[in-house]
């Protein structure tokens, strides 16, 4: 039996005096899509970066496909779509995708997957342009094509829908679902609650580095007697009266 794509146990991380993560437990099974949702600064990106081995954690353990996060085996099992793709500005999108394939040591299957993904995103000729000349949204799409074509057991997507146009959001959602159907685990961080509700099998709500609620989107709505995930979000944060509160405050604007 293949190991679980991602197991996070009691993870803690501090930046100086501020707590980024505290006792976070999480599991991403093969074929499932887990969404990390939370206010800005709640620790979503820190958790993704720790999982990717880009930063070390202070306590707990993160295991990626049976290997500790940051190890060579764990790195080889991860495909990351970062919030802000950077570096290699002078490579074309196609060259960047080829580089990723070479570094991960994947073969023709990955190339075929990248062609399918690029067509679906409508990148076409854009892949012949240098990354530095692409808009942020297009660059994220190229980054998604590179990552999702690898066929890695675990896919990490930071700020999944940020800067993407509505078409690209649809394509990304379908691509993640297709990869999950092939047995990949997906962990995504997003502020787009509609996207999270549509795509994720489980939503984990982070606040100040702590998991405050989790469950399937429908279960969360039912538990909080809420019509939308936005209401779930506000209720879980104990701020259901946010709208009326800021409306009052903004009268002074």
């Amino acid at each position: 039996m293949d190991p679980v794509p991602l197991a996070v146990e009691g993870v803690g991380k501090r930046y100086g005096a501020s707590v980024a993560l505290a006792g976070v437990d999480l599991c991403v099974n093969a074929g499932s899509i887990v969404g990390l949702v939370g206010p800005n600064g709640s620790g979503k990106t820190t958790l993704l970066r720790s999982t990717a081995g880009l930063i070390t954690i202070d306590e707990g353990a993160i295991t990626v496909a049976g290997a500790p996060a940051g190890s060579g085996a764990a790195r080889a099992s991860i495909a990351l779509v970062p919030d802000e793709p950077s570096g290699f500005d002078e490579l074309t999108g196609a060259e960047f995708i080829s580089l990723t394939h070479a570094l991960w040591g994947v073969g023709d299957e990955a190339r075929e997957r990248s062609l399918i993904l690029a067509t679906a995103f409508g990148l076409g000729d854009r892949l012949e342009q240098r990354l530095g000349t692409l808009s942020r949204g297009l660059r994220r799409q190229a980054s998604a094509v590179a990552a999702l074509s690898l066929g890695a057991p675990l896919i990490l997507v930071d700020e999944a829908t940020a800067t993407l146009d509505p078409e690209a959001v649809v394509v990304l959602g379908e691509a993640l679902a297709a990869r999950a159907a092939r047995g990949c685990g997906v962990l995504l961080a997003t502020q787009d609650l509609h996207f999270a509700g549509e795509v994720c099998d489980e939503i984990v709500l982070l606040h100040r580095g702590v998991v405050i609620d989790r469950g399937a989107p429908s279960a969360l709505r039912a538990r909080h007697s809420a019509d939308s995930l936005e209401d779930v979000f506000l209720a879980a944060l104990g701020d259901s009266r946010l709208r009326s509160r800021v409306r009052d405050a903004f009268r002074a604007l």
Partner: protein
Amino acid sequence: MRFELCRAVARCQARRLRAMAAAAPLPAALVVILVALAPLALVRIGCAVGTEIAAAGSSADVSTALVLGPVLAAAAAGAALAVSLPAREALGQQIAAGPCGDLAAVTASLLFPSLLAMLTLLPSLVSFCLAFAGELPGGRVAGVALALAVVSALPAGAVVAEGVQAAGRGQWARPLGVGVGVGAWVATGAAAGAAPLGMLAPVGRALAGSGPAWEGIAAAGSTAAGLGFLWIVLAASRPERRSPVRRRRSLGLAWRIPVPAAVSSLVVRRDDVRLANVAALGFGAVGALVAVAAGAEAPGPFLLAATTTLLGSVVGALAVCGILSTGYWMWWSSPHGRPSIIATAWYVGLVGAAVPVAIVAAVAAAGSGASWRALEFVAVVVVAGAAVATIAGSLALWRGEGVGDQLSSFAVFAAVAVAASLLMGLVAPRLTSLGLPGPAVAVLVCGALISAALLSLRRRLESDAQ
């Protein structure tokens, strides 16, 4: 995998330089021509300097000083180079999260800029050293040892900088190890009769003709290889930054933050700029101490301290255009006039280069004395150095991201410095022979360089805005 990464990084760097040359074809062509001509000019200069010193060349103290001066300057440059070597994250999060090793990442970052620097600097260095040593008792072969000694000082400075960086990140094993290494260096040198030269002591003997040249070549070559390898290993296993969340003195929500204060804050808050300045101060102070301890006459310690410090302190001037370019949309859309923003950037770079030099040079002058003429010389060198760094930083932006970008900026700085030195060396004597007094020539040369720096800043920022 390593090859693929190296190839991709080299391709990025080559395309970046090509775009740079395409954007400013005339300056690029001028730099290339001057860099190509520099070795020829340096042969003449080396012969002239060597002839001046030849009479005292067999003295052990003189030969030690002849090696120590360029070695310290190269060490300061090496330290600045080390702090500007980007971490693995410069590959971009997506690739950095991948299975390529840290050693591969460092090798890929270093490869192209190293080759570029070798192409631009090495011919000039070797030409000068061969011609210079040819007039000394050791002969031309000792010049090879001298050139290798200068090359070996780059990783030596870089290793020390890695130790300082590790200490700054709360890891003490590394600085302790580096400290022990420095102690062993001094002990080895002391045993050979030239403590500051350490393992490079045979180079001094080779220059003086009191030892075989091959010993100097072997010592410098093995030091360069050993320290180079050590630096790459240390750079590949740097400890993580302690915390990105730090208490900084905030500029606050003041209604009006003066533009110079904002630009200065952006420059001095960069870790690479601050560490380069720390390294520059350290190597400059060591240079002054060694020169004083060796009984060098004034203004020797002052000049050595000032020029060594400058090689690290110019990083601020090198970085300033990249910093402005990152936020060009804000600068350009602000009600401040563009000329005033460009002038501010130049002043910030100049002050950033001058302050560390002033600190170290003042201490050296207090300890050993300095003449007005030496002070004038240092002032001209600081202005010229800041201008050259600003031009290089405008041509090859010192960005906050992009693998090996800062190293490429360094390589371009080296090329522009060689070209500017040659140009100044050709023009200044002719102006003097026309009857212009020395200070007037200095003002003209500095004025020309400052104008070129302002022009290149403006050109770069306007092209970014478009």
